[in-house]
């Protein structure tokens, strides 16, 4: 009988307390922000701190309270920003994904060593010793401090050349390597930027070239080569305005030292569809490289001088109407302004024939 009482008494107490708790929970109910939890769900959850907040929870709090923009997470990129934006009910800004790039080509093949460094295998330690062991004091140490800082395994060291190499596929642009590098040779740059200066030595002339074969000597030839006024000199170094740059890569062609580095394999080229072109001449007048040939009212064609800047495609009146008269695609052979031949002679034999008749 005793045990029955025990069950009854404790059971009754339990039920009574349960009711009490439910009542207090209702009285003291706290409205939690449902959007905050939804934002937290969308964030990657790596807790890398790249956003500047303490982990993904802190970032979600900040976004929900409006203290941070919807694209605050650099790791998630545009995808996450879009999802967060739909939760928060705002448009995501067109923030392009960035990647970390090494702003130095001073591997030991280009930049000699001054002495043999046998100290701690760490860039910070090495750079305190007489500004590092390379002849250029701005050069990448290549001892792997950024490699250790990278939470995504996107950086490895070229052991022969002693320079950091970044895998852009793996890079999540969290910016930890940028903060870790004692030489400040890593910068976050837009992923679509295929041409940029890969040197940050502010010296000019021999002060640079004596130390490194491909350092920027401040000759300003790139500025003269740029047809879009996208380059300006800052601290004796050319700085590209990414909003103006059209990836024509003429600056890289003009550079005498290869300090202005371009991925020429990714260079674009414009191609005119002969079946659509009416020969209005708008593209020919716009082209700053003399790459478009053809008489008025006759189908135009583009020769090998094309740099793929895309100006012609943006002014073509037929393109504006939604037709694909001028298409920009990846170039399949190197640019050759001397040859000045049609890019795709096989595809447009009729066009060439007509041009001859006229």
């Amino acid at each position: 009988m005793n045990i029955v009482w025990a069950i009854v008494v404790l059971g009754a107490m339990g039920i009574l307390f349960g009711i009490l708790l439910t009542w207090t929970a209702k009285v003291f109910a706290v409205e939690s922000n449902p959007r905050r939890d939804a934002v937290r769900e969308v964030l990657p959850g790596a807790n890398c701190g790249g956003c500047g907040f303490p982990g993904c929870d802190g970032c979600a709090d900040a976004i929900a309270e409006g203290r941070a923009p919807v694209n605050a997470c650099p790791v998630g990129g545009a995808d996450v920003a879009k999802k967060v934006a739909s939760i928060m009910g705002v448009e995501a800004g067109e923030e392009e994904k960035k990647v970390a790039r090494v702003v130095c080509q001073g591997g030991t093949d280009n930049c000699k060593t001054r002495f043999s460094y046998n100290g701690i295998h760490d860039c910070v330690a090495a750079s305190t010793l007489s500004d590092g062991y390379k002849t250029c004091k701005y050069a990448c140490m290549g001892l792997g401090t950024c490699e250790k800082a990278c939470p995504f395994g996107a950086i490895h060291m070229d052991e022969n050349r002693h320079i950091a190499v970044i895998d852009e596929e793996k890079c999540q642009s969290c910016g930890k390597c940028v903060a870790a590098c004692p030489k400040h040779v890593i910068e976050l740059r837009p992923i679509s930027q295929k041409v940029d200066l890969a040197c940050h030595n502010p010296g000019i002339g021999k002060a640079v070239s004596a130390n490194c074969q491909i350092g920027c000597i401040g000759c300003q030839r790139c500025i003269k080569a740029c047809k879009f006024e996208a380059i300006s000199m800052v601290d004796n170094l050319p700085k590209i305005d990414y909003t103006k740059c059209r990836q024509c890569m003429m600056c890289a062609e003009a550079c005498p030292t290869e300090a202005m580095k371009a991925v020429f394999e990714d260079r674009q080229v414009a191609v005119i569809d002969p079946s659509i072109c009416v020969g209005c001449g708008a593209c020919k007048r716009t082209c700053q490289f003399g790459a478009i040939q053809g008489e008025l009212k006759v189908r135009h064609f583009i020769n090998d001088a094309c740099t793929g800047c895309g100006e012609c495609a943006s002014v073509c009146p037929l393109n504006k109407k939604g037709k694909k008269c001028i298409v920009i695609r990846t170039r399949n052979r190197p640019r050759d302004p001397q040859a000045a031949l049609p890019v795709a002679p096989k595809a447009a034999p009729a066009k060439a024939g007509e041009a001859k008749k006229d």
Partner: protein
Amino acid sequence: MNVYLSMLIGYLLVNNYVMCQFFGICPFLGVSKKFDTALGMGMAVTFVITLASFITWLVQTFLLTPLGLDYMQTIAFILVIAVLVQVVENALKKLSYSLYQALGVYLPLITTNCVVLAVAINNITDGWNLLEATFCGCCSALGFTLALLLLACIRERLELSNMPKWMKGSPGALITAGLMAISFMGFGGLI
């Protein structure tokens, strides 16, 4: 009246639950880094212990003893304490979110804190009546708060002092707590 006065001095100083009986050491060391948080924790514990003393006395006198369920004392008391802590947590979340965040994990830990259960059980074994039990609970909790606040004040000062690196933080706090316990022994002959 004399009983209440001696109870106040007794549980505040002479038989201080933390300093002389070594109950509730976890929050004593955990929440004593800042005076404000220590005060908040002290208030929360005072509320819980006072109310728990009141309710557990009623439960013991009118439910457990008449029905011969004294052996269920521990589990019944824990049930009461757990519910009270949950109520306090709900209320704090609504009324003072900053304090709720500052107390962090130590707030739910009051549930399993020995000082709360010890006070409730000691009230019964000491044979107090309802008013005395409640007052005793309140005094014991104030004693806990006093010890907590004293340590918080000392630790705030220690934070600024030039201590050896290996003494900073927990080691220093533990030694301080030990010295405090020794000094509380001085109240021994008071009543």
